């Protein structure tokens, strides 16, 4: 079972605030899921040399003359200042 500290670490990585009650629920849920997921550790009869990639080579596609939408970009912005997007002050730059 994940320790409370581990769950808190994951919650911080995911930037999801959780309270004490949720913390215990996640400890339980994650345990159930990981008992299942950990089964992958027993799998060893497979070919290790290649990771799956949905398509063969990025070179097959050429993006020249691609047009990507750029209208109304700031329409959904929660907080704006002029043309800038505003957030609480950033530290740790």
């Amino acid at each position: 079972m994940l320790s409370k500290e581990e769950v808190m670490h994951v919650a911080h990585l995911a930037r999801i605030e959780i309270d004490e009650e949720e913390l215990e629920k996640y400890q339980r849920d994650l345990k159930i899921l990981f008992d299942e997921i950990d089964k992958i550790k027993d799998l060893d009869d497979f070919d290790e040399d290649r990771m799956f990639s949905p398509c063969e080579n990025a070179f097959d596609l050429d993006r020249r003359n691609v047009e990507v939408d750029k209208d109304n970009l700031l329409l959904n912005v929660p907080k704006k200042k002029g043309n800038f997007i505003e957030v609480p002050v950033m530290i740790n730059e």
Partner: protein
Amino acid sequence: MSNYINLSIKEIHVLLKEKKITPIDLVNECIKKIESSDLNAFITLDKEGALKQAEELSKMEVSDDLLFGIPIAIKDNIMVNGLRCTCASRMLDNFTAIYDAGCIDLIKKHGMIIIGKTNMDEFAMGSTSETSYYGAPKNPWNKDKVTGGSSGGSAASVSAGLVPMALGSDTGGSIRQPSSFTGIVGMKPTYGRVSRYGLVAFASSLDQIGPMTRNVYENALLLNAISKLDRRDMTSFDTNEDFTRKIDKPLENFKVAIPNYFVSDIVDSEVKNKILEIKKLLEDNNVKVDFIDIKHIDKTVTLYQIIAMGEASSNLARFDGVRYGFSYPNPTSLDDLYSKTRKFGFGNEVKRRIMVGSYLLSGENAKTYYNKALEIRDDLQKNFLKVFDNYNLIIGPTTARCAYDLGDKGDDPLKSFMDDVLVMHANMGGFPSLSMPVGFNSEHLPIGLQIIGNLRDEATIYGLASFIEKNIKEDFSEVRNGL
């Protein structure tokens, strides 16, 4: 109330062509049916936009395109410019799409009319559509039952005849499983067949948009319309083919495989028996059907969970209250903005999967879990490809059991995955896979047959599906006609 919508697309086309009806009649009928329905199938109904487009189309010459003037419903995780796109989440409750998805460009080019956006599991995570912020849609066959999910609203709206066609998305069965639960035809095409530009990503390497329709022919027709090379998606490809071309053609030297796992104890006996009936039907028509084993097929769901949740945790990181969507008011710091926006913006199932996904990728776990899953995934694809060296198609049930009661699933984290157990192989290998109704269980709920094809070989799937459709006696339109 008029009942043009229940006619086939071909019949509607003739009426349009002969000017007996106009697209406005079709839109009005859809709107009336949707507004009087209690299925909770739609999140957003675009009455004004649909009518405006119908009026414009009514002034135009009806083209030879069978889809011209046909109303369609779109799952609410696909961008339609100017319409709300919520992904059934509080996070995007006030989010307006500012662009059209690649497939929506094509839908519009064909002169189809977008009626609205359909209900779904929040961010497509779930298999009952119950995780929707707007409440679960109901199964038209029995309103106490789930529609399945995540494309539950699209499935319910086609099944009940609110619209003739819909688009869904399928990451681990999200088109096929609700299609099976509601007795319609749903196709998850080959990965890359339909552009993902404008589809809100759940798990990038598994997601695929596909058509949900009342019958096989119309499904192929809609796939024809939405599959085209899109340079805005690097995984997009095009083969320029007509997916209806094998429909109603004889099945010559046809060989079909049924994986033993697909008829093992995990499958409900009523469902299993139906599949065996189909086997007999095929054999009676000179199709060779073999039971086979596929390596790793019984372990794929674990690999699928790892990949889907790992990718989801990263894909959903962008919902942070900064550039769009829900934003927690008056945060005390940037981190406070993030963690409270995500605490209150996401529902429990989404948060749980993000948590698991984050843990799966943290520290050394990425190598132990995600990278290893990708390696086995490569093997799994090869194992399926080997089957297609000898067989035209693989068949089996879409789901282990029929639609179950709303609320049945509860909060059990594992149950959420049990519905994926037969369908996610196609997503893992990138293979096309279709679900079609083939019968009913004792509760008179539809049973779905799944047909998996080789990469890029949707046409053969449609060929077999149309044959089966023609040769079974059950009628799946009663729920539409009863309305």
